[in-house]
């Protein structure tokens, strides 16, 4: 009898600890943001918040110097010009991209991704572009590189300097759940190398991984699309996520899949208030 009572007590303790544990997983998103920023503030005390938009160049003065030199006459200019032409070209039915977006598609990139209550999913700028094409009976563009990256470059360019404005609607549990899943994806170890996003970009941010310095996760969503110097092409944020998953030898979620949209949503929420500086050049 004594033993069973003791067992009961232990069980109660275990159940209680589970409750507190799950409560800590589902922390308030604002608290998450505060904690992440405090973490980086501690790691790089000299760095003002807005500088995180420069990514790894914010913490690597040598690379920053050459990056600034490249940005004076940036290689993405050709893509930018092409994007403007594509964006302004009317569709066969007379409509155009501008008609699908608020404010004719100008200075709006900072409002993406957002939670769409009607569709009950996260809408990213790239997915909104393809939705626009579908609405106008056009074939969707391939995500990752090519035409969509030129369009994104133009749209980001018109929004330069705007503050990232990702919010989680207060009245939507589904939006909060999507955020939480994005956060879980960020911290989840995966792949043969058993890495999570956080291991490199949070725990080891600023340290070397072979010859490269790991960038802080704060600011990861501000500068897309980017001209990658390693491929010589414009590349999108989701393409970068996919490359990361390949590098850690994990299952690669396709661009604009639910998982990657949730990750983008989480990271953008962390970046709230940072200046948008896409398109950009990255190694």
């Amino acid at each position: 009898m004594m033993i069973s009572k003791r067992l009961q007590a232990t069980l109660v303790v275990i159940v209680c600890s589970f409750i507190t544990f799950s409560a800590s997983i589902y922390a308030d998103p604002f608290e998450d943001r505060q904690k992440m920023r405090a973490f980086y503030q501690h790691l790089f005390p000299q760095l003002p918040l807005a500088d995180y938009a420069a990514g790894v160049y914010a913490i690597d003065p040598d690379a920053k110097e050459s990056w600034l030199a490249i940005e004076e006459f940036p290689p993405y200019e050709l893509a930018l010009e092409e994007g403007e032409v594509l964006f302004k070209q009317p569709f066969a039915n007379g409509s155009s991209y501008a008609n699908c977006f608020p404010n004719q598609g100008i200075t709006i990139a900072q409002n993406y991704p957002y939670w769409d209550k009607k569709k009950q999913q996260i809408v990213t700028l790239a997915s909104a572009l393809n939705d626009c094409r579908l609405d106008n009976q056009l074939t969707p563009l391939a995500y990752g590189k090519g035409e969509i990256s030129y369009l994104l470059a133009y749209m980001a360019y018109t929004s330069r300097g705007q503050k990232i404005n990702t919010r989680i609607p207060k009245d939507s549990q589904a939006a909060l759940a999507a955020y939480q899943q994005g956060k879980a994806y960020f911290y989840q170890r995966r792949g043969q190398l058993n890495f999570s996003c956080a291991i490199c970009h949070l725990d080891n941010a600023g340290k070397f991984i072979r010859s490269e310095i790991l960038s802080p996760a704060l600011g990861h969503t501000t500068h897309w699309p980017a001209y990658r110097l390693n491929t010589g092409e414009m590349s999108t944020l989701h393409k970068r996520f996919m490359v990361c998953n390949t590098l850690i030898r994990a299952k690669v979620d396709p661009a604009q899949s639910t998982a990657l949209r949730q990750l983008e949503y989480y990271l953008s929420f962390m970046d709230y208030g940072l200046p948008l500086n896409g398109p950009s050049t990255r190694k």
Partner: protein
Amino acid sequence: MSTIKIRSKRLADYTLVRTLIAHPMETGKRKDDDTGELIPAHFIQTVSFKHNDQLMSQCQMGPGIAKNPFFSYHIKSAQAGDIIRISWQDNLGYSDTAEHIIR
């Protein structure tokens, strides 16, 4: 839309002229991912740089140069209002010229 972009900056002891040319620069050795066939060579052979109609430099180029090549020139004697003219010709007979006025 010109394939050549030119920008200049007057510095203390020289003028920096930078140019970006949009060109595929195909070597002729690359294969098409879908069909497996060779992509025909298409690369710039000469780039000439004129300062006020005087030929200052002429580059002889081969397929070893990167796609969308970038060049920068330092000129010592440039004044405001000088005209820079850059042109290229490629192996398929295409060419382009662009003008730029130094400010």
